[in-house]
Each structure stands twice: as C-alpha cells, then as structure tokens.
C-alpha cells in the first residue's frame, strides 16, 4: 500500500516537473496531433469511438468557452447554442456552396475560422446592448437571441429552412478536433491568467469595486463575450462537419442547457473542471444510450444530486496545476528570495 503511494507520488512529481518544462506544451500538441492522425488513418481506434472522441472535443470547446462567461465572470448566458448555430451555418455554407469541391480538405480550417469569426461578430453585437444592463438581463437577452437565431434560420429557404442543411463532407477528423480543442483551451487559459482575466474575475466578485479599481468593466465583459462566442462558433463548425447535417432545431435552448450542465457539472471557474465535465457528460450520454428515454431521467437526477452534494461542481473554483501560470509562481519565488537576501544584508 505504502509502496503504491510512493509510486504515485513519484509519478505526480515527475508529471509536475514535466509540465513546468518549456517544451512540454509544443510537444504535447505535436504528439496529440500525430497520435490522432495515426488513429484516424490506420483506424486502430474504431470509428464509433472516434466519433465519441470528436464529440468530447467539441463539447470541451463549448464548455470551456461558456465557463468564461458563466463561471469566471459570474454572468448567466444561455445563448451558447445560438452562437454555435451561427458558426455551424457559416462554416457549412462555405464548404458546401463557396469553396471548390477539390480543395475542401485544404480550406476546411478556413471555413471553421470563418464560422468562429462570424459568431464572434454576432457575439459582439449581442454584448453591446446586453452589458448596458446588469445581472439577470443577460440571461433574458441571450435566451431571446437563441430563439431569434433559430427562427431566422427556419425562415430562410435558401439555407434549407426548417429542413436543414446537408451536403457537407466528413471533414471533421480527430486531428482537427484535437487541434481546435487544444487551441481553445490554451487561449481561454491565457485570457484567464492575464490582466483581462483578472478583470473578469473581479467583475464576478464585485463589479462596482472592480470599476473603482480602474478595471474597464465594459471592455472586459465585451472581450470575454466575444472570445466565448468565437469558440462557440468554432465548435459549431466542427459539429456540422462531424454530423454532416444540421437543422435549426439542433441549436435550440436544449442544446444550451446541455452545455450549461457540463459547465456546472465540471465546476465553475475551472478549466480542468470544464474539460472533466465535458468528458464525463459526453461519455455518460453514450454509455446510457441503451436506457433510451430513461436517460433523460437519469441525467437530471445526477445533476440534482450533484447540486446537493457538490454545489460548485466537481472542480468548482479550483484549478489543476497544469493549467496554472507557473511563470508567476517562479516570479513570486524569486522576489521572495531577493527580499530575504536584502533582509539578511541589512538586519
């Protein structure tokens, strides 16, 4: 027993020093992408499992980006499915109607990026009026936004109306999902551990005090909202090209609720929590598929129990060390050493 513990400790110690290394994250990216490429070319992971992994990745993007608003900033947005829809439709229209069929594989990242940018733009337009008001209004505005997007999409016949849009190639592959997931996690983590991220946190804690401490709260809120909707759009594009078929009903309030569940399951204001929440929820949904409709009884029940026993989610307000800015700790440590030396010199 004690031996197991030492092996575990040894591993954790190694893991920590490993994540401290400068080359760790580039190496992690390269290994991840090459592994995923190998997996999808040689199919040593079967296609069904690959599809689940793709959904896990997409859900991680959605959860981490929504956590920025609902967890870190403490506002309540329910419009994530709407932004996802914008990304999904823009990316799909580009690959189906605009890009030449031969170059689809090559131009796919561009389509995804365009979907993300379109969603970011829409996010910006939603953010401007909704952050003039405070508190619960964002929930109402984003709820309305979600419904507007759905009915607009249902009423444009050129993009299939309520029947939806099809004809996308199966362009969302495991390596691409890995790439976009890692990118979104990395960027949101960077934002959180920057000046603007601290601004986001201070808005959650006390908005008036934050404004009085020179934080431009309006600017910070808009930046956070735009970044969040950008990644919702990216996820939407990937989703559309994984399923190869989209219709407006897929992006209704139920979808937003799914994402909310993943955020609160994983834990607010935690990137590690969002990753864990998305993985657990996606996999559970698949595992419980044989239950059929009873799934929809089990999942809410789980959520209720979670809220009773762990109201802040699995990782609520805690962060895994691998996502923390180690550079800051080093700076602090060096400062303390310097202070101690100065103190020793002049007692």
């Amino acid at each position, binding site marked *: 027993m004690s031996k197991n513990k030492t092996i575990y400790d040894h591993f954790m110690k190694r893991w920590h020093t490993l994540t401290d290394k400068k080359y760790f994250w580039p190496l992690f990216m390269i290994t991840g992408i090459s592994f995923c490429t190998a997996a999808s070319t040689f199919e040593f992971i079967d296609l069904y499992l690959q599809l689940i992994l793709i959904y896990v990745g997409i859900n991680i993007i959605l959860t981490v980006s929504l956590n920025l608003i609902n967890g870190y900033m403490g506002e309540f947005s329910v419009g994530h499915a709407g932004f996802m829809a914008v990304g999904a439709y823009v990316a799909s229209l580009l690959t189906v109607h605009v890009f030449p069929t031969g170059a689809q594989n090559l131009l796919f990242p561009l389509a995804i990026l365009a979907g993300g940018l379109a969603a970011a733009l829409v996010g910006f337009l939603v953010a401007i009026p909704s952050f003039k008001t405070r508190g619960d209004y964002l929930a109402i505005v984003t709820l309305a936004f979600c419904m507007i997007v759905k009915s607009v999409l249902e009423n444009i016949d050129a993009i299939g109306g309520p029947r939806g849009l099809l004809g996308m190639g199966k362009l969302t592959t495991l390596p691409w999902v890995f790439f976009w997931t890692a990118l979104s996690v990395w*960027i949101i983590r*960077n*934002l959180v551990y*920057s*000046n*603007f*991220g*601290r*601004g986001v*946190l*201070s808005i*959650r*804690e*006390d908005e*008036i*005090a*934050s*404004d*009085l*401490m*020179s*934080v*431009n*709260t*309006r600017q910070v809120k808009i*930046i956070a909202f735009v*970044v969040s909707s950008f990644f919702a759009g990216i996820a939407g594009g990937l989703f559309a090209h994984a399923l190869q078929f989209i219709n407006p009903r897929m992006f209704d309030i139920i979808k937003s609720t799914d994402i909310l569940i993943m955020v609160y399951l994983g834990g607010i204001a935690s990137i590690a929590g969002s990753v864990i929440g998305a993985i657990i929820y996606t996999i559970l949904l698949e595992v419980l598929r044989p239950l059929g409709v009873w799934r929809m009884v089990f999942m809410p029940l789980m959520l209720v129990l979670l809220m009773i026993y762990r109201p802040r989610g699995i990782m609520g*307000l805690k962060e895994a060390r691998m996502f923390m800015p180690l*550079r*800051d700790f080093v*700076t*602090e440590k060096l*400062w*303390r050493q310097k*202070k101690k030396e100065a103190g020793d010199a002049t007692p």
Partner: protein
Amino acid sequence: MPLLEISKLTHRFAGLCAVSDFNCAIEPHELVGVIGPNGAGKTTVFNLITGVYRASEGSIKLNNQELVGLTPHQITKLGIARTFQNIRLFKELSVLDNVRIAHYGQIAYTPAEALLHIGRFRAEEKRIIHQALDLLSIFKLDEMAGEKAKNLPYGLQRRLEIARALATEPNLLLLDEPAAGMNPNEIIQLMDFIGWIRKTFSVTIILIEHQMRLVMGICERLIVLDFGATIATGVPAEIQNNPKVLEAYLGVEVAV
C-alpha cells in the same frame, strides 16, 4: 491651485436631496475629514467624486479637469482611489490578485497579446507581480499573498483594502470610515497609520469617520454635513465649539 475643487454639487435621489450645494477645495497633501450624522450624505459625496453616481448638478474638478460624466474607471485612472464603508474586497481571489487587479489601468499590453501570451505580456506581468508584492510587503501582507482575501482577519482586510486602493497610484485617497469596527487601541494605531500613508505615498486624503477621537486627532480641516447640507467647515478646534455642529451632531453626545 487646489487639487480637488467641488462647486455647487447637488444630487437628488428621486426628489430626496442627498447632497445639496456642496462646495470645497482640497489643497495637495491636505488631510480633510468629512463628518456628520448617519444619512447626512457623506458616502454620497464619495460616490459622486468617484463616479459611482452621476451628479445632478455642479462640478467636480481634479487638477482642473471636470470629473462629472466620467466613468469610475476613468476617474480612478486620473488619480482618485477609495475604500469602502463595508469592506469590498474580491473575497474569493488571492491577496496578490486583489492588488494586481488594481494595476489594471497601468498595463501596457493589448487583448491580443494577452490571448497569446506574446509581446509585452511576460515583461508586464513580471513587473506587475513585483510591484504588487513590493506594495504588499510595505503593508506587511506579503506573507499572505496566496491566501484568499476572505480568509484574512478583519483588521488585515481593512489594510488590504487600503493597499489595493494605493495600487492604483492615486493622488487623492478617499477613506470611507476606516475605523469602523475597531477598538480604541486599534484606532490610535490607525491614526499613526493614516499619517504614515500620507507621508509615504504623498497622497491627499479625505476621510469619512464617526470616531471623533480619530477625526479630531489627525484631520487638518473638517467639513460637517447634515441632511445633505454643509453646516460648517474649519479646523477641528473651531468645529468642536460651533453651535450648529453641536446642535446637529456633537450636541447629542454632550447632552448624554
């Protein structure tokens, strides 16, 4: 030239006149006290100066620049910082983060640099951590830099709030009841502390306080408010003997 010049400041809350015709000129490095019974409009004056409320009428000028109409963060950037009557720290955040947030206005990198952690980001973050820790060590809070603000004892929370306000590099510091909840011993310490802050950071201080011992002890000049109106101004000795003040405020205490 006065640092802060307030003239004809009036503020109404739906008919209730919280502050009426408030005038004052604060010279650099002065220590001015604002006193008055509960509900006299003292905190409202602070909220008007810092832009939390927008004044109905009148003007507030800092170094001849009009502040009415600016947002709180713009005013803070111009050099006014404050603390709150009921402590308003970022409770779930660390002591270090509380101070780092107050450096928001001084950061030179753009959102794009922050998203990718490139360019000026690293150097700036390093600078901010050093500045924040230096400030915390002046206030003897650096040992608790990693602690959540809510876990600090009450006295230290008050001290952290002042440190956080000073991190915005103000010329003018507004203290809203700094002695609230302190015992007489602590108040004596606080008096020294406020004087020390004024000297060390060369700031002008306006403070709201109910503790007469503190106000009479350190303030060079007092402004007395009652029901939104300024009833007296002058040096503490004059105020103590002003019949209007005695009637409105001190009179009650003397009678008891």
